[in-house]
């Protein structure tokens, strides 16, 4: 059995959006399989239109297919209608590239970008015909591996995933390929041995090689079973983004997907230090792509893909050292055709200037989103999102003055120390933004989008007890009432889904049984509101004798062990604890790219350095540092692109 297409094709005529399953995107590959090639099936455990754009998966797809001894194909979670057809006809999960059964591959490699997709991982493994539990798998089964931001707390999936990759995947996939190649040559006989070998690859965590200890409900610790298995698994980091100009041939889907545009990653990592933001904490340090390379990737990507929109992506794109020049040159290159639009996701208001605004509006304009995250300056000091009201208002003014009519504002509710004054501050900001817009256009509008805060591992807020469902509902109602007669609108994320995310986010290995129960009860596609039901999660917790409040709303003490203590993002525990205390004291912490190093542990611990093109912050705004930025920073490991200067900056 190698090509399932003849049997799949008649089923596709009966399902919604059949083109989800045909592959054939521009940039896709149909690799040759063979005994000397390690076969990876890269899976995004959500619907095709959510998974296809994932850049991490596309980067690994290219890197692996460039290797003569490896190949990669893709798969996405089949929607419930096709899943039913597959099960009814006895067909397994398949790759979309050559429609092979998933078990034709040596590895099923999942990208985990969100906790609520975990039940889909189990469903995909089961549909593949592989036992969902690690303990039940035999030599005939492929290895189930996972990477992505969620693996910084791998424990909730530890019973189902053979090996996790922590951190950047660009280099480690090749090392895993070597180990699996040897296993494949040996006839894939000894599963235990290959897992043992994988456990010694830096950045790889093999949960079955570790023992978990509890004391009643309390988690005590995780320790390796063998001496050659590391007690702490450190994340992988690629030192220089310039070495990895991927994806070179971004996939162009045949049907509409989210983020349906060319995406060019400007930099990885962020040191703004927002305390709620796991991505910013675990991806340090900042590594910028050389501006010339970014420009080339934009030009070639547009020409090759036929896209008419490009997004310059990162965790805070306006912080890119050469942002105005880059935006300007893209705009100049495209002017004349008048047909390419540019978007800058994750814009910080303090770096969004009239200069950037006027450059973008020369090409086609897309919606503009800012993320002040909290309604008052006090609250923003707590979360260390150090943008002032003036920053937001001048960004809004710049946008409306350059012709934008709609501005979207992202906020979190349920943050530590939050009071109703802070919540209502969100309404106040949204109202004032509309007010500013009205000076420029009658059609000005603003939407405040609020999401409940879920504390994440490896952040200063990992000790914080999440707000209850009732409390989040109360805060949403407060905002709705306050904006009832306002032109500013409010949208919110379902507090019940936020609660389920909270169960998993800081869950330990015992949560695995809960995930399995939710999956067995039919709880797939939990990211989709029409498929989500908190009752399933609460029932599963009750059946396992676990207290949801203990996992979600309980404040952690400084003494207790955390289920992810054996996974290292490089951040000193003392730094995180100190930053948590600083948050409660309403003290902000400046960005270490431009101000003195406070030694979070990452650069010093891993001998890494920031790679940035400019020693000064981008123009405009307060930059939230509250410091004289002209004064030389002290002892920050920074390498400047395009200069010979390296290493620590002079004192």
């Amino acid at each position, binding site marked *: 059995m190698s090509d399932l297409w003849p049997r799949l094709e008649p089923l596709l005529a009966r399902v919604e959006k059949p083109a989800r*399953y045909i592959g054939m995107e521009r940039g896709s590959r149909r690799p040759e399989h063979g005994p000397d090639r390690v076969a990876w099936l890269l899976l995004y455990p959500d619907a095709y239109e959510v998974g296809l754009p994932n850049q991490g998966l596309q980067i690994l797809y290219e890197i692996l297919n460039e290797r003569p001894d490896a190949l990669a194909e893709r798969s996405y979670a089949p929607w419930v209608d096709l899943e039913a057809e597959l099960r009814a006809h006895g067909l397994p999960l398949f790759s979309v590239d050559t429609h092979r059964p998933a078990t034709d591959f040596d590895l099923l490699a999942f990208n985990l970008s969100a906790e609520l997709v975990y039940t889909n991982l189990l469903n995909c493994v089961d549909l593949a015909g592989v036992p969902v539990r690690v303990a039940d798998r035999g030599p005939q089964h492929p290895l189930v591996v996972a990477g992505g931001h969620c693996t910084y707390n791998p424990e909730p999936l530890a019973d189902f995933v053979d090996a996790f990759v922590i951190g950047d995947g660009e280099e480690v996939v090749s090392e895993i390929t070597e180990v699996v190649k040897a296993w494949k040559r040996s006839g894939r006989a000894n599963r235990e041995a290959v897992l043992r070998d994988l456990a010694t690859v830096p950045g790889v965590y093999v949960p079955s090689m570790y023992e978990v200890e509890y004391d009643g409900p309390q988690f005590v610790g995780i320790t390796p079973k063998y001496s050659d298995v590391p007690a702490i698994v450190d994340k992988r980091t690629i030192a220089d983004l310039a070495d990895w100009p991927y994806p070179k041939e971004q996939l162009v889907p045949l049907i509409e997907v989210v983020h349906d545009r060319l995406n060019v990653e400007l930099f990885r990592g962020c040191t703004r230090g927002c305390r709620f933001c796991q991505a910013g904490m675990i991806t340090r340090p900042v590594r910028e792509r050389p501006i010339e390379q970014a420009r080339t990737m934009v030009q070639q990507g547009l020409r090759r893909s036929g*896209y008419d929109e490009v997004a310059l992506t990162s965790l805070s794109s306006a912080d890119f050292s050469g942002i105005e020049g880059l935006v300007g040159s893209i705009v100049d290159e495209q002017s004349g055709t008048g047909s390419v639009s540019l978007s800058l996701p994750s814009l910080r208001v303090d770096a969004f200037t009239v200069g950037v605004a006027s450059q973008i509006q020369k090409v086609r304009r897309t919606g503009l989103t800012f993320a002040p995250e909290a309604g008052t300056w006090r609250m923003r000091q707590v979360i260390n999102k150090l943008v002032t009201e003036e920053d937001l208002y001048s960004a809004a003014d710049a946008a409306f003055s350059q012709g934008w009519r709609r501005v979207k504002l992202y906020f979190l509710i349920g943050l530590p120390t939050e009071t109703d004054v802070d919540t209502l501050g969100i309404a106040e900001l949204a109202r004032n933004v509309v007010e500013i817009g009205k000076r420029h256009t009658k059609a000005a509008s603003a939407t405040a989008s609020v999401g409940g805060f879920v504390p994440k591992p490896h952040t200063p807020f990992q000790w914080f007890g999440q707000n209850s469902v009732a409390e989040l509902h109360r805060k949403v109602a407060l905002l709705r009432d306050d904006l009832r007669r306002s032109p500013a609108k409010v949208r919110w994320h379902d507090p019940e889904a936020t609660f389920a995310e909270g169960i998993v986010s800081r869950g330990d290995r015992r949560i695995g049984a809960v995930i399995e129960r939710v999956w067995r009860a039919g709880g797939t596609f939990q990211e989709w509101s029409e498929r989500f039901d908190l009752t399933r999660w609460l029932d599963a917790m009750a059946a396992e004798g676990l207290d949801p409040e203990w996992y979600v709303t309980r404040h952690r003490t400084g003494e207790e062990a955390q289920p992810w203590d054996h996974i290292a993002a490089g951040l000193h525990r003392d730094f995180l604890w100190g930053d948590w205390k600083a948050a409660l004291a309403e003290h902000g912490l400046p960005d270490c790219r431009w101000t003195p190093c406070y030694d979070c542990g990452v650069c010093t611990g891993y001998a890494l350095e920031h790679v940035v093109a400019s020693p000064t912050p981008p123009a405009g705004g307060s930059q939230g540092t509250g410091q004289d930025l002209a004064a030389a920073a002290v002892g920050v490991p920074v390498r400047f692109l395009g200069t010979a200067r390296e290493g620590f900056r002079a004192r």
Partner: protein
Amino acid sequence: MRGDTGFPVRMRYAKRGPVRFIGHRDVARAFERAFRIAELPLAFSAGFSPHPKVSFGPALAVGYESDAEYLDVELAEALADERLVRDVTGGLPAGMTVTGVTRLADRAPSLQEEIASLGYRVTTGGVDPVALSAAVEAFLALSEIRVPVARKGEHHVEDIRPSVLALTALPGESVVDVEVATRPRTLRVADVVTGLRTVSEDAAPLEELRVVRTRQWIERGGARWEPLDVDRRSEAPEGATRALETCA
């Protein structure tokens, strides 16, 4: 107005294989991208948000294949037919191929206005060729065939017989060729299959397995025309033609 800023071109293309599962809007986007990949000099509409002037013929149902799809696009400058065929096909998904090009006269009527009938080849299942052929004969013998049809979510019972312009069973095969009218409204292949099931008891288990649109026709002066063969731009420039007419 068509032709006021450039050179209108009509293209015929095929849609074969797995790409049959993409919809009409996806096809439109695939062409927009293919035009950009091919770096075609497109003419843009005037106004606040300029867009290329592209228009398509009648939509093809998701899952159907076709050897006869058409679109009109306006170029800012004239291009060789061979280059259009090669470069646009190069930018399209696998299975979509440009198979013919014609330069249109200015102010040629649009495909949506002009396409009068559509031909399909329907491979069926559930019924043997003899029963199928009998159902076709029964169908053709009737002057009225009322079947339930779904339109915009509402169910009506309609007489489909006048819209079926031709219907033939291929000898010894479970295949029929059918030509349906687009007016007063386009008849769906599924409705024809329902009609066949209705007229013959032996054809009750009939189901459509694979549908290929084989032709589209424009009616002009009582004759049927392949859409690439009407409204061609004359070889002499329009101005010259007009000048000659004035002389005569």
